[in-house]
């Protein structure tokens, strides 16, 4: 496991500063880039569809259709881009509002689709007006847009600027160092020249009077020796302590996982609630690594990431490949939209390893105490690679128990205990420690 020292080094702080500045400068550029893309979107829309409003259509599409349809790929239902080329509008009105009726009526096109998609009946949308459907069709009729990628790519280029400026900094630093060396060399040469000149002029350069070397003088000064050895001892004790204290502490442990799963995308960009996947955190001691069928609730219809999800570090192709790994593990045949039954359970590397003599219960903290997941797990929504945020040491647990007030409102379990305890301690709010949260046996059995 990766080891991390207990002390914050200066270099780490410097690095952090640098990273922060880079991040901020990046986001500045990103904001500049955004409007450009939007403009391109708007400009492209009217050019394609005359009948409907593609922007409204996109909204409707995302609200009603996107659960089963994608524009360019098969999902539960067929890909919808250019659907107008396959069917005429009156047929589409009928199909969207009540597809089963159309099938019953014996429409050959309808039956064909019905058969092709494993006889899955499409939901009816009687609430959609003709205009709405026109809008949706307008949206689906837009040509596949490669432009934004190019635009984004172009706009990202200035994003490289901070890196460039870093480079120039290095050049400046290099130049400065070179100047420094030149100066030293010059000083040496000047000194040599002066001595030669003096010698030539017959001026006697006073020879160095022999003095006791500084280290000898130091060694003779017992007081100094004492002070420095005390200092040395203290310093080494400090570092030894620091080393020993980090034994078994795996803060920032971020192992490589069999599938590159990004919390940034799921919890951050998509805002999925932690409890959606880690559902047992509310009821059980384990937060639970979600079983793969939970992944498939969404990934059945999300076979690839959007272009905007990709980062300079991780390309779209990379992410798409990770989703393919999931499909392989769960045995999902994306082509035919069905499970093959061949599964390969994913062997995740466990990040948070509590020793077996510690009992920790998620539901106590998540459900009863209402502690945010982020309190212990850090800004998970920002993590591209999940890591251990907290040190998970006993002092860390205890400090929190000392400081955290127990959430008692609305929980009848606490009514009596709260009354008695607040009388005992003379306070209205009680900490977990006052509830007995520091007792050994509460966590060790």
């Amino acid at each position, binding site marked *: 496991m990766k080891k991390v020292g207990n002390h914050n080094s200066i270099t780490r702080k410097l690095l952090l500063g640098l990273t922060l500045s880079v991040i901020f400068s990046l986001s500045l550029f990103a904001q500049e880039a955004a409007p450009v893309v939007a403009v391109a979107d708007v400009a492209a829309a009217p050019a394609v569809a005359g009948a409907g409003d593609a922007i409204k259509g996109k909204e409707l599409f995302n609200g009603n259709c996107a659960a089963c349809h994608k524009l360019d790929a098969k999902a539960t239902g067929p890909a919808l881009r250019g659907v107008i080329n396959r069917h005429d509008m009156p047929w589409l009105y009928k199909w969207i509002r009540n597809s089963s009726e159309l099938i019953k009526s014996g429409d050959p096109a309808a039956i064909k689709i019905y058969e092709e998609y494993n006889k899955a009946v499409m939901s009816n949308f009687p609430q959609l007006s003709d205009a709405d459907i026109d809008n949706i069709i307008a949206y689906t009729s837009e040509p596949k847009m490669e432009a934004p990628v190019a635009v984004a790519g172009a706009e990202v280029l200035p994003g490289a600027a901070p890196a460039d400026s870093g480079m120039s900094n290095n050049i400046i630093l290099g130049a400065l160092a070179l100047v420094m060396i030149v100066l030293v060399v010059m000083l040496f040469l000047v000194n040599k020249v002066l001595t030669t000149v003096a010698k030539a002029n017959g001026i006697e350069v006073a020879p160095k009077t022999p003095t006791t070397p500084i280290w000898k003088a130091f060694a003779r000064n017992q007081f100094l020796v004492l002070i420095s050895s005390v200092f040395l001892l203290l310093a080494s004790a400090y570092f030894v302590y620091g080393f020993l204290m980090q034994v*078994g502490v795996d803060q920032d442990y971020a192992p490589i996982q069999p599938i590159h799963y990004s919390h940034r995308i799921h919890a951050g960009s998509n805002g999925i609630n932690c409890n959606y996947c880690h559902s047992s955190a509310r009821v059980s001691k384990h937060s639970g690594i979600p079983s793969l069928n939970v992944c498939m609730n969404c990934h059945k219809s999300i076979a690839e990431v959007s272009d905007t999800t990709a980062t300079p570090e991780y390309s779209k192709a990379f992410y798409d490949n990770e989703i393919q790994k999931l499909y392989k593990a769960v045995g999902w045949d994306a082509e035919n939209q069905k499970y093959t039954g061949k599964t390969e359970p994913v062997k*995740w*590397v466990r990040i948070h390893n509590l020793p077996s003599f510690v009992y920790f219960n998620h539901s106590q903290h998540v459900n009863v105490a209402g502690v945010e997941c982020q309190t212990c797990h850090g800004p998970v929504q920002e993590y591209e690679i999940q890591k251990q945020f907290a040190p998970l040491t006993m002092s860390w647990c205890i400090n929190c128990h000392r400081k955290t007030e127990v959430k008692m409102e609305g929980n009848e*379990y606490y009514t009596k*205990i709260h009354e*008695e305890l607040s009388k005992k301690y003379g306070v209205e709010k009680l900490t977990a420690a006052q509830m007995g949260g520091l007792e050994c046996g509460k966590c060790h059995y």
Partner: protein
Amino acid sequence: MSSNKKYWKSVEELDESSSIVGALKNNEFVEEIPTDEFLGNIDALASSSTTRRDFLKYVGFSTAAATLAACEGPVNKSIPYVLQPEQIIPGIADYYATSVFDGFDFANLLVKTREGRPIKIDNNTIEGANFSANARIHASILSLYDSMRLKEPKIDGKASTWSSVDSKIKLSIADASAKGGQVVLFTNTLASPSTEKLISEFLGKNPNAKHVIYDAVSESEALDAFETVYGERALVNYDFSKASLIVSVGADFLGDWQGGGYAAGYAQGRIPKGGRMSRHFQMESNVTLSGAAADKRLAMSTANQKQALVHIYNIVSNSSVAVTLDPEFKAEVTKVGQQLKAAGSKGLIVSGIQDKNAQILVIAINQILSSDGFAKSGVRQIRKGSNIKVSQLVADMNAGKVHTLIMSGINPVYTLPNSTAFVQGIKKVKTSVSFSLKDDETASISTIAAAVPHYLESWNDLSIVKGNYSITQPTIRPLFTTKQFQDVLLSLNGETGSFYDYIKLNSSEIIAGSTWNQVLHDGVFVGSSVNISVGSADYNGAATTLAKSKSGKGLELVLYTKTGLGDGQQANNPWLQEFPDPITRVSWDNYLTVSKADADKYEMSNEIVANGGLNGSYATITTVDGLKLENVPVIVQPGQAVGTVGLALGYGRKSAMKEEMIVGLNAYPLYKNFDNIQNITLENAGGEHEFACVQGQKTLMGRGDIIKETSLEIFNTKQPEFWNKQPVVSLDHKEVEATTVDLWEPFDRSVGHHFNLSIDLNACTGCGACVIACHAENNVPVVGKAEIRRSRDMHWLRIDRYYSSEDTFAGDNERKENISGLSSSLSTFNEMEKAGENPQVSFQPVMCQHCNHAPCETVCPVAATSHSRQGQNHMAYNRCVGTRYCANNCPYKVRRFNWFLYNKNSEFDYHMNDDLGRMVLNPDVNVRSRGVMEKCSMCIQMTQATILKAKNEGRPVVDGEFQTACSNACAQGAMKFGDINDTDAVITELVADDRMYHLLEHVGTKPNVIYHVKVRNT
């Protein structure tokens, strides 16, 4: 009076002149520990090349090296489900209601499963689930994970497939009908309506087939008697809670007599309420759990028991059958008979004598009394075996009449007394099939060893008591390639579908008014109760025949089953092997129990040797037929009837056993004619046997007043101060009650929960279910025979057994006799009361007392053990450095030290050493490593879980929710657990009870475990 009674643990202590008595009071061991053997040799010590400094250097270096090596942690993997089953949430336990009957034991259960694997057995407490688990059933969960189980079917000893097994059996049956040979289904008692129906269908299809039922431990005589009187092969399901006077003639009804399961009902009547409790007379030869619980125990041989039964019959029925009862018992038995007659319908008599006439007399007496406990709770169907039919089968086999033999649930090669004849016979059988969990003695010589699933992996239905229906459901997918006997029968009958479908279909008519899902959920269905009908027989004739029965020559050997191993099915279960017998406190052995008088006669003895272990002589048993059993270890058993010896069945298994588990001697060969009474001669075989006995260990160092007991008379007439005396100490030269003096400041315990555990000595029968339940719940390791012998047992909960004799309060005795108005019999009576010949027995479960002022806490140098506000004494294993100061300072000797690493250690090859066995471990409790102290935690994982459940649901905890493993397992209701800060809780009432006392009150430890004074209805 309670405190002036003398308690003793071994016969040696009764001898005033013995030096051991004095030594034991002050020392843990009688003899000096031979430290000189290894320290005395100065030369050897001096010539050692390792100096102290070198030693320290090595220690320092290896510590540093170990520290550095420990810096790299392992990479752990987490593998979630691909498709998570809806009902499973990792970390949350699921419970399944099921029932078990394995041919010997039966119970209605709740099985706790975690992540799909069963880890603990609890009692099903729903109405109608009347049978709670005994120690063996609690331990059966470990038998599921037995690594020695048969993992696939075998044909001729080679691994095979089920399809070839099926076809082979089918072919054989076809061959049998073609050649006119017999097909015999040889099974244990099934008590399963569906299986019985399936078998009758099979018999219908195969006219040359027959079904023979065999019970390894026979109740055939009682069944015959019941059949004679009522025309039905069944056993009475007695209700001991309805009886105020219980007379048992040789029936260990608190043990395994007629299947057992009577302890809960019995205990109900034993707790004094409103000045009344039941009275229990026991006449027996071995000391049994029932004898231990009895108010009056008469140690008598079976020959005398038969006469006594007739004598009682005479009194109750006003008959006058001639009786030849020993004069020393006459007065007492007469008294019993008169009291029984007076009790009328509140009286109840039971008998364990394996004699049809005796069993008929029991029915007769109960009929005359019109006993409530006899007539009103239906009949049991858990024993159906017929000795005659089994003997006939063995004869048929040897005569070559049996073509195909299909066995299920039995191990006749091991259990049959005429096992050699059976082995001869099986060689003449064309095809023998043994449906078995293990490749046991029988399966290994059968043509086909058919691997069956454990009951926790099977479907079945049961009708333990007529009219009551329960379902056995699987709690885990079969671990191995197994198939149920019934599923094979279905395919033999040419039917498709599984046995599950068959049960479901079959149950619909039985569970009228309910649904399958409901019954499956509840585990039981209560049908209309079937009372015993009317019936009669020639009772006087039976009495006459019984009275005339001659006793044989020589000593009477009484074969019995031990609380631990029972009939021996689970002999490979380390929990049961290590379970100390409640009476002798010996584990890992069976032995001959011999009375003191007989032991003296044959110069046999027990002694405690230097290391604290118990040694005993060897004896050789010779039956009247000349059958010999050599080198049987001897335990001198106080209370054993003179002229009788006892020996347990169920030991000496050899096949499919781990090496450590092959202990004891097989007594089944002596079980001739399925009669548990055999006439034998005894010889001293010389040599010494090393027992693993926890009897003389963990002594209380001469501190008395551990057990408080009194008689019902005194309890009813005197003030509590008299019979539950508080100890006094001297304070300022005045005697004050010990509870009022304290070195320490009291804690405020009024806030939140404060747990107390109450143990009623009246209700405790010493059955040991709590001990095994504690093992299962708390991952208690098994240490093996050698370690037990070194007093290194790890039982968190032990049941101490104390013998007491009344020789020190003759005055009380006299008064008691005066009250009963039978002073004439006093002299005889006193004769019998001679210490050691017939002691009274008291059981006392002792676990950590969770003292409010705990002596262990103050001496721990690293504060590894500390106190909680909830009353539990915490033990932080990770903090413990193993000084063992705490164990030394504990007055109750309940702390256990891990001398070794007991898991994943091939030196301790028990369940924790194999992957399968470790599946039983409770994931909520830490598995301790070497060098740390451990002890009862008052099941803090359970109390914490209960609290969390209430918090999650936003409600206060309801009384009865707080439980410990032991209180859950205690069907007798002797152990009750709860929160004393809940004013309405049952436990609060128990704490305020007059009978309440603390163990060693004068020490001032203020324990959170309370006891209730034992009251005897003498």
